[in-house]
């Protein structure tokens, strides 16, 4: 039986309060009230008094790991992390952007998150489909068991079945709609480059205004940069104002990486990101 949202919120407040009170962390990253219940916002509690402002409900989808890299190295941070969020934390630890010792991870096992825009359930279709955090120090509820375990890659079937031309048309139609607002990379916990390659002029990798060529360059390169690192939280697609299903492409790359390199992103802090690693016995077949 999964713990209720209300209960998780209570637990979150209690544990965050304890951490701040004991001075174990200087801030806790969590969710706070937005303009309505459906739009909670990322929230930073720096003192015991701030804790009351925390909320947790089915719309708290944002991946707070995104904010970890904002603070100076060595800042002690508590972070509320759902399943995919915890994988982002692991990935950031692998990349040495944060240190495990600097974090207190408040793990949230949860089932029944919803997309605020569509009110559809958020499940393996648009995320990694895990319910329980992979890493945590404190668990804010009981582990979720008994819910259907779905492959996060099943949703790819339709696009995979398309012919090359049909698939190109599909992506062209989708990517042509991109208005280059960069909400996807803003929402992404792994997109921490500053500046992003596409913002550079030397070299100029692609057009900056929204048009076919620049859009393609931006997105394809971004898919490559996230290969073996995307933890499939799906936030890029939820953040997208024109609803481009970026998650499909990320899932496909993640699936291929898993098959080729035998490791999924953000599952163990002892691994190295797949693309800055190799095995001598990697097969040449992966190039076919």
């Amino acid at each position, binding site marked *: 039986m999964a713990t209720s949202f209300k209960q998780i919120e209570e637990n979150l407040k209690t544990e965050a309060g304890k951490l701040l009170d004991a001075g174990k962390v200087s801030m806790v990253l969590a969710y706070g009230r937005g303009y309505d219940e459906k739009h909670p916002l990322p929230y930073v509690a720096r003192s015991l008094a701030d804790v009351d402002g925390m909320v947790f409900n089915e719309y708290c989808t944002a991946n707070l790991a995104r904010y970890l890299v904002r603070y100076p190295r060595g800042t002690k941070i508590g972070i509320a992390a759902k399943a995919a969020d915890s994988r982002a934390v692991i990935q950031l630890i692998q990349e040495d952007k944060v240190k495990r010792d600097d974090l207190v991870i408040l793990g949230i096992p949860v089932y029944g998150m919803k997309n605020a825009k569509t009110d559809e359930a958020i499940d393996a279709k648009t995320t990694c489909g895990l319910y329980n955090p992979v890493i945590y120090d404190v668990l804010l509820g009981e582990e979720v068991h008994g819910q259907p375990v779905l492959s996060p890659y099943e949703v790819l079937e339709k696009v995979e079945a398309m012919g090359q031309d049909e698939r190109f048309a599909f992506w062209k139609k989708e990517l042509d709609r991109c208005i280059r607002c960069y909400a996807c990379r803003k929402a992404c916990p792994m997109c921490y480059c500053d500046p992003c390659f596409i913002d550079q002029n030397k070299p100029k*990798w692609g057009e900056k205004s929204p048009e076919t060529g620049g859009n393609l*360059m931006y997105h394809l390169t971004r898919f490559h940069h996230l290969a073996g690192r995307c933890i499939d939280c799906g936030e890029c697609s939820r953040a997208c104002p024109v609803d481009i299903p970026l998650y499909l*492409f990320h899932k496909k790359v993640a699936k291929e990486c898993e098959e080729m390199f035998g490791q999924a992103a953000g599952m163990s802090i002892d691994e190295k990101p*797949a693309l800055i690693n190799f095995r001598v016995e990697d097969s040449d077949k992966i190039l076919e």
Partner: protein
Amino acid sequence: MSFEPKILGIACNWCTYTGADLAGTTRLQYPQNLRVVRVMCSSRINPSFIFKAFQLGADGVLVGGCHPGDCHYNTGNLYARRRLAVTKKILEFSGMEPGRFRVEWISASEGNKFAEVVREFTEEIRNLGPQTKFKIS
């Protein structure tokens, strides 16, 4: 006039580029559709180079490096193998014909192989026809 594809080659200095020189020294004949960029190591190849090449109108892209284990820089091509494999998967999933991008390990002594690969690849690209998907006109 029949379709003459433009093929971009990126070759590592130590193996494939030298192998291509050997093909010339031994006067092997192959189609003139390939234009080679020399880099020091196949690991230098940024995935965006490949995307860019197609945008520039390349009908095919051929990458050549040392055989895994023989890299002049020890492990460069082992990283390249993974990175280029992902590049290939991305191209495929975006709708690009898989045949348009190829990675081959060609050593400095494999002039024959170089010529053979160029012949084969050129033929394949010729059959695929002009690449229009990425090309920015």
